[in-house]
């Protein structure tokens, strides 16, 4: 098992970072009930860990016994919301379609990534909630309890799906609690946010990350040289998951650790850094063509395009004069926005590179003639 999983705290009283939040959560559910919750904060900051520990706090160890299911949901799609690729089969007011989705569930909760259902996300969410409302757990005294539905990546949920959630959150509030998890709260509609208790999970500070790494080292019986954990923390960009992964990579690479041991960067980051150097060295159609191949390579390895763009900007900014920094960051924002509206991210990544080359080249010409 990877250390990120092995050392994920299982209960609220065992967390190393976010102890204050964990205490509050304990208080929150101390009477057995809980409101709908929205956890938001950057990736790798510890949201999922807290959510799982919270479920365990509410339901006890049986919340850990989860099974993975690949389920097919039959959903009725109403006429008004058809989409081009199945509209040809529609005659009546509604028709039933199959949506396949992976869920993780215990007797008390169901967890899923509704955005995996694409256009059908709103129907899937509604169906699952209805089904959960039907199968309410009953306690020894014959009273009905509630189930928890954990929805990941709600920021990727369509607006329609979010809108249809607001009524559902009220209508099924007796049988179902929602725990929503999102990287950004800006992308969750105000109506949904205002129906939840919002819990912000910030990225841990470097010192806190060091504490986690030292804890793991102790458990693994490892000696770490002075300042070594701090270097990993610094490179992690306050991403705890990443710090733990890197730490384990260092362990595999070389043990005993040495003071000057290099902290390995992520492969793809190394690759983006090379792209940045390529662009700085030569600005020409030929070079653009080569860079395009490399961008493709990254995309086919499932690195999200906006992450590539941000990393590329990061690398370029390190090398630029201050007056160009403004212009280049403006363009990065511009092309990322376009990418979001369009469909082929490679076009926009390439456009950004081309734009950069042209700006940089005219800068060089005007400065050095």
């Amino acid at each position, binding site marked *: 098992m990877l250390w990120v999983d092995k050392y994920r705290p299982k209960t609220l009283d065992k967390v190393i970072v976010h102890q204050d939040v964990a205490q*509050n959560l304990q*208080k*929150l559910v101390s*009477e*057995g*009930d809980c*409101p709908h919750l929205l956890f*938001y904060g*950057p990736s790798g*900051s510890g949201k999922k860990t807290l959510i799982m520990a919270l479920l365990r706090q*509410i*339901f006890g160890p049986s919340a850990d016994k989860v099974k993975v299911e690949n389920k097919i949901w039959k959903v009725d799609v*109403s006429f008004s919301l058809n989409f081009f690729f199945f509209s040809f089969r529609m005659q009546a007011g509604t028709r039933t379609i199959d949506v396949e989705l992976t869920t993780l569930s215990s007797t*008390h909760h169901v967890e899923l990534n509704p955005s995996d259902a694409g256009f059908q996300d709103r129907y899937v969410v509604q169906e699952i909630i209805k089904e959960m409302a039907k199968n309410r*757990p*009953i*306690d*020894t*005294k014959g*009273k*009905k*309890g*509630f*189930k928890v539905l954990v929805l990941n990546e709600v920021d990727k949920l369509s607006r329609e799906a979010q*809108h*249809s959630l*607001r*009524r559902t959150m009220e209508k099924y509030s*007796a049988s179902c609690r929602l725990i929503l998890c999102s990287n*950004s*709260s*800006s*992308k969750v509609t105000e109506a949904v*946010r*205002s129906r939840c*208790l*919002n819990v*912000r*999970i*910030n*990225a841990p500070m470097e010192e806190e990350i060091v504490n986690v790494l030292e804890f793991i080292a102790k458990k693994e019986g490892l000696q770490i040289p002075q300042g070594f954990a701090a270097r990993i923390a610094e490179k992690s960009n*306050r991403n705890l998951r990443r710090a733990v992964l890197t730490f384990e990579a260092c362990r595999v690479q070389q043990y005993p650790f040495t003071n000057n041991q290099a902290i390995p960067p992520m492969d793809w980051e190394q690759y983006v850094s090379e792209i940045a150097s390529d662009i700085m060295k030569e600005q020409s159609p030929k070079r653009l063509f080569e860079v395009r191949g490399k961008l493709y390579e990254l995309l086919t390895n499932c690195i999200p395009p*906006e992450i590539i*763009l*941000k990393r590329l*900007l990061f690398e370029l*900014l390190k090398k630029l004069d*201050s007056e160009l*920094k*403004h*212009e280049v*960051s*403006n*363009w*990065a*924002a511009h092309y*990322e*926005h376009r990418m*979001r*509206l369009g469909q082929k991210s490679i076009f926009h990544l390439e456009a950004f590179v081309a734009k950069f080359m042209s700006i940089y080249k005219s800068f060089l010409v005007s400065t050095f003639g």
Partner: protein
Amino acid sequence: MAPVMQTSQPWVEKYRPKQVKDVAHQDEVVRVLTNTLETSNCPHMLFYGPPGTGKTTTALAIAHQLFGPELYKSRVLELNASDDRGINVVRTKIKNFAAVAVGSNRHGGYPCPPFKIIILDEADSMTQDAQNALRRTMETYSKVTRFFFICNYISRIIEPLASRCAKFRFKPLTEEIMGSRILHICKEEGLNLDSEALSTLSSISQGDLRRAITFLQSAARLFGSSISAKDLISVSGVIPNEVVQAIFSACRSGNFDLANKEVNNVIAEGYPVSQMLSQLYDIVIDADDISDEQKARICKKFAEADKCLVDGADEYLQLLNVASSTMQALSNMPQDMAF
């Protein structure tokens, strides 16, 4: 075994006034409706104004006061935006509801006038087509129904509907009125709020009493019965002033790398960028040492970034762009993006 659900009613519902006279700060509509209670006469109504100012409350209260609990179901139809409100659904529902005739006998001490009430809440989210279809329906059943349209933006209601109604604008509640409603709840719930916390709550809710009550209940759940200003800020999603100021000072410093560092910090802390923009906006607008032209330049960028965020653009890149543009505007650097 699964824990048992406690029926903990949200305070927003628990403290919703049941009578029209208890609706605060909306004197005009209260006066008209009090009159309605005496005369049993009532035009079609259109309530508009920002969220949490009492629109739904007022409509529900008058409906209850006119018909009482027994007749309520058969006399009042509530539809809101979460219901399916395609044209046909609305037409059929209203038709079925309005078509059944009513008598006018007083019933259990309630006035029970001889009409039915149809409340269309969040009406501004209805399509133009659906609204147009309603015109006919309104005419057809005008003798036996009264419509209450509720919306935030009156401009989204088509003119032929709006012109048939008596229109009432609901004003944002003042801090005093918010304060007194909140104190009332605190008393009922046994909460302790010092004066700083009280004024903080009034100001972060910006005239929206629903938000104020929601924040209060969240804070009570998390922090117990003694609630500080800081507790309220932490549940409200409002960004602490120091953090906003840090970004703004970085913009004033003219140092790009410093601004970038602050932007990174905002993202790592998980603060929503849309919220950051609205708080930065307040600072920029209030600043005495920024010229109107500079303010205009900065605000234009805010507007663009806001739109991009709605489209789903990346928060870091948008905030960095705003910071960089603000910096350029403050130091009067030219800023053009030539294609």
